[in-house]
């Protein structure tokens, strides 16, 4: 227990370090800062690449909504299991909105979405101090067309692994 506490504290430190980095090409389609963590091999179930590609690092939302669909809950169950099995990782959950809406409202909406994902992970046993949130509003779409096909992918909460104490 003592050891775990130290690991989490170290993880939190690495989050702070990661925050000062504004590299937009973060691992796993994240839009924000990202520490220099290796994605590893997608075939390694303990790797961030596996988390991103196989577990699924993102959940999508309906227009103007922050409630989690059954499909989103399934993805988050997988994320929670992975995070519980890999306690040395911490994560930043990024909330995003599509471009329909004002900049201010979308920032607030993105925060709701990120928080909804975080609360769900906490309800499945992931320690809250391993999970931070940030909203990018409509500032960082991943799809750039102006139709629902793109919008539906932009209304997302992405769980970005931001640190590992094992390296």
């Amino acid at each position: 227990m003592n050891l775990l506490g130290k690991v989490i504290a170290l993880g939190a430190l690495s989050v702070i370090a990661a925050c000062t980095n504004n590299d937009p090409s973060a691992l796993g389609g994240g839009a924000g800062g990202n520490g220099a963590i290796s994605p590893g091999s997608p075939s390694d179930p303990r790797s961030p690449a596996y988390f991103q590609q196989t577990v699924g690092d993102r959940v999508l939302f309906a227009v103007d909504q922050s409630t989690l669909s059954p499909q989103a809950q399934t993805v988050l169950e997988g994320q929670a299991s992975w995070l519980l099995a890999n306690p040395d990782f911490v994560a930043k959950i990024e909330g995003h909105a599509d471009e329909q809406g004002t900049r201010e409202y979308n920032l607030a909406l993105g925060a709701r979405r990120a928080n909804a994902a975080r609360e769900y992970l906490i309800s499945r046993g992931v320690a809250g101090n391993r999970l931070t949130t940030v909203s990018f509003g409509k500032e960082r779409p991943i799809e750039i067309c102006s139709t629902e096909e793109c919008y539906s992918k932009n209304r997302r909460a992405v769980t970005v692994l931001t640190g590992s104490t094992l390296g």
Partner: protein
Amino acid sequence: MMRLLTSLLLGLTLLTAPVYAQNGPLRLDLDIGVIEPLPFAAPNFVPDGPAAAQYAQDISRVVAADLTGTGLFREISSDAFISRVSSFEAPVQFADWKAINAQALVTGAVNVSGNRLTVRFRVWDVFAGQELGNGLQFSGTTEGWRRMAHKVSDQVYSRLTGEGGYFDSRVAFVSESGPKNQRLKRLAIMDYDGANVQYLTDSAAIVLAPRFSPTGDRLLYTSYETGQPRIYVLDVDRVKQSELKTQDGTMSFSPRFSPDGRSIVYSLIQGGNTDLWKMDLASGQSVRLTNTPAIETAPSYSPDGAQIVFESDRSGTPQLYIMPANGGEATRISFGQGRYGTPVWSPRGDLVAFTKQNKGRFHIGVMRVDGSEERLLTSSFLDEGPTWSPNGRVIMFTRETQGASGRSTLYSVDISGRNLRPVRTPDGGSDPSWGPLQN
């Protein structure tokens, strides 16, 4: 570049001029609604020597551009002129200007001595054969020539409309480049007409929504410098920024100054929920203004500082509300179809400008502060973020085009809904904040 503005010590001198009785002077009443622009002539200001020639021509052109840019005035081409103005002191040949239907005439002279530039000008009511107001003289450094031209324009506008001008003012905005999914944003400031752009930040971090202080000396804005959106204040002349400390681990955004410049109101996100807070700038202490599970954002003070208009989705969709400046019960003012956001109280206090989203279109609109007389001024795929000209007659906003190549551009529109026009910027532009008239 900032040194330019601080070192520009504008001298203002009243020219001695004959005083005419003013009965029924030329007056463009903006409340009636101007459909036919008032024709004016602005012959090149008279240079008093070769050193002044280019300045005289440039100043005349900026004055004419300022006036025609309002949509309220129409310049008569110099090709039509009968009289030549070769001396500032010579009597005006009113018959020659009447013949080409110039209702107003602006004459001027420019003197350059070393790096010192002096502009003298007079405004004439051609059909009354009288001067409107008194001749004035501005002087400053040659590098500040555009500001002197704008000051002349403000005087002309003021004499012809009876209202304050807005030409000698600056606009802070976000300069945008790059594709939509990796857009680079820099904080920038420029003259109201897009001249003299200066960049205040680099594009390393996303920056959003600069807001001028009431006197124009500071800017509030939001930056992702730390990875989280947080509020910063920047001293415009020194280009020196500092973070405004809100609660640790929170996101803060959408700040705006109080009219006395001593406090700010802003949005703070805690546990995914966005509420309004107010910070006293001297002490750094914040107090909560709203406490609901709804999104409360985009606050803007009334000019007297007594009330705040803001956006909330407490009814289920984003709508506009007004509450006392210290918090308390809020009154909903928007009741039309659609979603309302980004309300901004007009400098005159009579109107609220807003963004409206309805049936897949975005609009910039205005309504009275009690929510009545809603008028939509624009319509496009995405218009948002209005800001008022210092005199409350013009609104500048962001227009973004749709699709993968979508681009943001600044636009301005008269509150009558007329004279919609792009504001030229070197790259894309968004989130304008129109500063006060400069001293």
